[in-house]
């Protein structure tokens, strides 16, 4: 990896940059508290289907999406709530979607694994592992052909490294110098299997073999993620080609909420270690406090504010109506 991180620290004392850090903190707390509500809704049997929580990985979505414009594109995954929120989705309509309500982003037809929102450039979350690599690359293809200078980010877990189509599109993206960033969220586990049992060789080499700029970053450090994402995004925007980022992170909960007894594939000690020593929100708030960017009271205020907003958003979703049954045959065709 040759690119330098942006010289963000140099002016870190300006109010604008402080506001940006505080905003990033808010976004990370929003994701954490959103997922707490999802867990609650699911365990109270109010939420149908499956819930794959993003808790523990917040710094990845926020660090990447803060490097994007609102009109840049993302594709997301089954573990996608964090990406949607970080790109600007509103929690009330997300909760409504999770409960299958008409007010949801997809009128209740997509659910937790398919939230899509054109207003924030969200091309949709995808429940096929690696299923969106073509879509993100195609969005970059269109951006280049139409001269819009938009960038597309393709989020996927390290499990998608097993999908051949990823390698097909990385080849295309580099051949055509497309503005797409492949963001591999390596949370160590392909569902219930450690990724080293499924992944031969080196992760970054998969991208550099195509000549794609690639880097690994501590995915628990939002400043590091943002710091590396920014030059990748700007480089792509300038037409200099795709990038590949491996963000090393950890999924606090099971593959989905029902994955409770998971000691057969990972230990409680390991989980506790990540939560105690590598929590992305604590890591960031410690830094904010140490740098004097925020008082503890401000951070507490933010948490309380967001908690209240999430409770209101859940209430909105619970009280929202289901779509009319007439809706079932709508939107099969445009």
């Amino acid at each position, binding site marked *: 990896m040759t690119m330098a991180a942006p010289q963000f620290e140099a002016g870190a004392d300006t109010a604008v940059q402080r506001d940006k850090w505080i905003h990033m903190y808010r976004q990370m707390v929003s994701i954490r508290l959103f997922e707490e509500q999802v867990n609650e809704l699911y365990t109270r049997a109010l939420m149908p289907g499956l819930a794959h929580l993003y808790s523990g990985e917040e710094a990845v979505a926020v660090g990447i999406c803060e490097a994007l414009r609102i009109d840049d594109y993302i594709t997301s995954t089954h573990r996608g709530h964090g990406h949607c929120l970080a790109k600007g989705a509103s929690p009330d309509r997300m909760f409504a979607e999770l409960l299958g309500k008409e007010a949801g982003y997809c009128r209740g037809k997509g659910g937790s694994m398919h939230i899509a929102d054109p207003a924030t450039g969200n091309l949709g979350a995808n429940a096929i592992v690696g299923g969106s690599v073509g879509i993100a690359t195609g969005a970059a293809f269109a951006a280049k052909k139409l001269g819009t200078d938009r960038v597309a980010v393709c989020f996927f877990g390290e499990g998608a490294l097993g999908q051949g189509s990823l390698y097909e599109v990385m080849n*295309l993206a580099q051949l055509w110098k497309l503005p797409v960033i492949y963001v591999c969220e390596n949370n160590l586990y392909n569902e219930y299997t450690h990724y080293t049992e499924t992944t031969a060789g080196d992760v970054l080499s998969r991208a550099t073999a195509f000549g794609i700029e690639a880097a690994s970053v501590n995915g628990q450090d939002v400043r590091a993620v943002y710091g590396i994402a920014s030059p990748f995004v700007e480089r792509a925007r300038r037409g200099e080609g795709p990038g590949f980022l491996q963000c090393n992170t950890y999924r606090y909960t099971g593959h989905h909420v029902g994955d409770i007894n998971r000691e057969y594939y990972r230990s409680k000690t390991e989980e506790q270690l990540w939560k105690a020593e590598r929590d992305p929100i604590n890591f960031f708030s410690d830094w904010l406090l140490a740098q004097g960017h925020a008082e503890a009271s401000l951070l507490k205020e933010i948490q309380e504010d967001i908690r209240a907003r999430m409770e209101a958003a859940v209430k909105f979703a619970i009280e929202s109506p289901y779509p009319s049954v007439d809706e079932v045959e709508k939107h*099969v065709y445009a």
Partner: protein
Amino acid sequence: MPESATRELSFAQAVREALAEEMRRDSRVCIIGEDVAEAGTPFKVLSGLVEEFGSERVVDTPISEAGFTGVGVGAAMTGLRPVVDIMFGDFITLTMDQMVNQAAKIHYMSGGHWKVPMVMRTTLGATRRSAAQHSQSLHAWFSHVPGLKVVLPSTPYDAKGLLKTAIRDENPVVFFEDKMMYKLKGPVPDDDYTIPLGVADVKRPGDDITLVATSSMVQIALGAADLLANEGISAEVVDPRTTWPLDEKTLIASAKKTSRVIVLDEGYGRYGVTAELAAVIAEGAFYDLDAPVKRMGAMHVPIPFSPPLEDVTVPTEQTVSEAARQMCNKG
């Protein structure tokens, strides 16, 4: 057909003219696929397009069907109108996730927010001595999936009009061309006409029996109708032109008129297009039928290479006319 239709074009030329006209009309239309540019595909269907529109719009790809089909889906969602070229219909297997789980479902899953105005052009048809992996007619697979439209042109005229409609459609449309038909000539107007999807065409009117035929089987049915006419049997040939949307009304009306129906399609019969069309006719015209609806399609075998073996796997004018004769009790 309009007056200007005196000009004759081959099926391949008609396809090319449709693409060229749409690319001139709409700068968002582009072609993506293997050897689509200078090579103009192995069938030379696209010859000359890269010269007019440039390699920015006629885009050669690596041999990565899943990858570039996915690119087509994403590009269609974000402002282009790609025509994705899959050289042989047998290769749609490689694109299935992109077509079935992505393209077909995105509009619905997103509650109508995203659209995928994309065309996939590919081929079908046996008897080209291409063996089991370059000869199949797999359009039934896509016809099975809500969210996709499937077009099966059988004449140069239909190919041009239907392809222009497919490109203007807001949905993913799969357009199957019979590779044995590329040299077939027929009248094609040089004006900007379109043919709506979901409207069947009575290719030949008749009274005694209906031959419902798709794509490659339309010419077979017309040939069989000629043979039958010599024996005093009047066969009506009805071409649905699209398997979805499907013009059920025209099929049922013809069945009611003639009371005997053979359904012909080059795909596999079992669980295939013929099964669906026969069911539609049986449900809609049961009390007007004098005989069970008969299905004729590819034999349930991988397409063999050896010519005498391959030739018996698909219906011919002779086998169709024989079946019709028996159904009309004149065998």
